[in-house]
């Protein structure tokens, strides 16, 4: 048993594991989603076994508290990162002003097989937003308004944006550059119930030149095309603030060879019903992130570095920095003493 452990604890295996990890990192570069996770998992598993064996058997590591804390920290990080991958959730969300969050709104969801967060307990309602722009359309701070219901029935208004995420049930909602306008429409069919909804136009101002979308009313085959002509005060030369409240739009509706321009409150008759442009509103795009290990990762990594710091401090303060305490050597280019650092 001990022999097996000692073999597994070989420092040469460490070097091999590190080289394999380097190759895995190179393969993962730029494309962590498409690269097989195994190119990282295999070398990390090898290093973890190697390191665990070394911690158990090698007195050079387990008799030196600082070094031990550091290496245990490394092991802890690998384990935590693994748990993180198994339990994480990553997604995007587009949510309209005055719309309440619901888990069905999440898009591009990627999650680990053990993900078990309480997403259904996340409750908030999106408000408006503003985004500051410097000249040449350089995006500055985003202020997105979010309402949280309070136990007394009132709504708490908070401001999130950029590096101030909305954190609910450990889900972190980060505003993104993806945000824009949405006409709120009501469809009044010849027969049946009227429906109201919003059509999200592409991200603004990124797709300022193609604010279009289309919609097929339920029960029909009529493809209605929308084009939104916006007036947001956007300028290239000066700083400006993107704000839904200071923006207006005219909705160009095309169906077949019929084309009409609607202002908010106006409606038009189409072959299968009437379409009303109620008003113009906005939507905000979030990146949703859930990983229950991030605080632990932070804590373990900092503790590890402190261990390393302590180890070095002790080691470095024991011997002078530039005295020769390894008299086996001269400056003729011969080898230094093993591990003489």
């Amino acid at each position, binding site marked *: 048993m001990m022999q097996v452990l000692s073999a597994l604890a070989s*420092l040469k295996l460490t070097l091999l594991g590190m080289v394999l990890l380097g190759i895995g990192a190179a393969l993962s570069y730029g494309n962590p989603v498409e690269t097989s996770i195994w190119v990282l998992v295999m070398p990390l598993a090898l290093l973890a076994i190697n390191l665990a064996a070394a911690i158990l058997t090698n007195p050079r590591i387990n008799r030196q508290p600082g070094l031990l804390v550091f290496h245990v920290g490394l092991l802890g990080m690998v384990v935590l990162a693994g748990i993180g991958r198994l339990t994480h959730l990553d997604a995007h969300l587009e949510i309209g002003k005055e719309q309440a969050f619901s888990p069905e709104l999440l898009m591009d969801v990627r999650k680990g097989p053990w993900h078990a967060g309480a997403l259904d307990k996340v409750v908030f309602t999106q408000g408006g937003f503003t985004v500051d722009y410097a000249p040449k359309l350089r995006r500055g701070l985003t202020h997105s308004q979010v309402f949280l219901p309070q136990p007394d029935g009132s709504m708490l208004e908070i401001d999130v944006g950029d590096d101030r995420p909305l954190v609910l049930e450990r889900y972190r909602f980060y505003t993104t550059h993806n945000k824009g306008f949405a006409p709120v429409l009501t469809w009044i069919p010849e027969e049946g119930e009227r429906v109201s909804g919003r059509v999200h136009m592409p991200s603004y101002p990124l797709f300022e030149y193609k604010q279009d979308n289309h919609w097929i009313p339920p029960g029909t085959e009529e493809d209605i095309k929308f084009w939104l002509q916006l007036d947001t005060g956007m300028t290239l030369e000066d700083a400006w603030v993107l704000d839904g409240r200071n923006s207006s739009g005219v909705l160009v509706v095309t169906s077949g060879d019929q084309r009409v321009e609607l202002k908010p409150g106006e409606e038009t008759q189409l072959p299968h019903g009437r379409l009303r442009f109620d008003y113009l509103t906005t939507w905000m795009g979030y990146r949703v992130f859930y990983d229950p290990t991030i605080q632990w990762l932070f804590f373990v990594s900092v503790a590890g570095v402190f261990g*390393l710091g302590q180890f070095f401090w002790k080691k470095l303060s024991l011997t002078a920095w530039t005295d020769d305490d390894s008299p086996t050597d*001269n400056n003729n280019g011969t080898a230094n003493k093993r591990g003489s650092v």
Partner: protein
Amino acid sequence: MNIVAEQPWLWAGLLAYLVATLVAMWGLSPRLVGSESVQSHRHERIVLGAIVLGVLLLTIAIAVRWVRIGHGPWLNLFELLMSQLWSLGLIYALLYWRLPGLRPSAAIVMLVMWILGSWVLLLEPADSYFPATYYNVWKWSHVGLGKVFLALLLAGVGLGGVMILRLTERGRRWFRAMPTDAVIDKLAWRLMMLALVFDSLMLITGAVWAQDAWGRYWAWDALETSAFFTWLLLAVGLHIRLSYKVPPWASGVMIISIFVLAFVTYFGMPYVSTVAHKGMV
């Protein structure tokens, strides 16, 4: 050409570095073996004084630019090079002062510094703009730790260079005033160990910042991958020395490779991927 306010200060700072470089090189000359000022290390005071003066002038250059454009030197290459010249000079001056054993290697260190120095002279001091993600407080610790990390590597390059140059007769004469290779090697790897501490902290604070800024702490983008390689190579270097006898010149090659990787991470990666550290529409 339009000269902006910080440029004269930058040039003056580089001039001071030039003096430090030349005097450091002068001090190595085999012809000066008997020279009184070299024997009594008086020229080292000039080297130290010139680096400190350069740092002061660069401080003014950075401050003047900061006032002019309204934010610190965090963003474009001109700013990154200028602030690295400042911090590398500052930290190296401290090491030079506290560790007399490494002083002659300043000739190598200052020559390497001129890669940055001549590069910054070729760049337009274009204004940069301040993206939303840069208001984050972690920026300060991330950048600060990275500066210490790179400076420690740079000092290591000086020592690594000495161990390599000492393979030749001429190199042995240039660096005759330095301790044995064994001592230099020990000192160099101590600097590498400290570098690993600062590198690790830089990666941790960078990950926290990335989580805040982009909603993920690690995503193998160009900068992150390159920074990880540097960290891993440092670990490999330290571990190779645990398993094998490493001749001093090979030790020097390892240290220089680590520095080259770090250098590419800092100054090459912004070319590969600009989005990582900039804001989008």
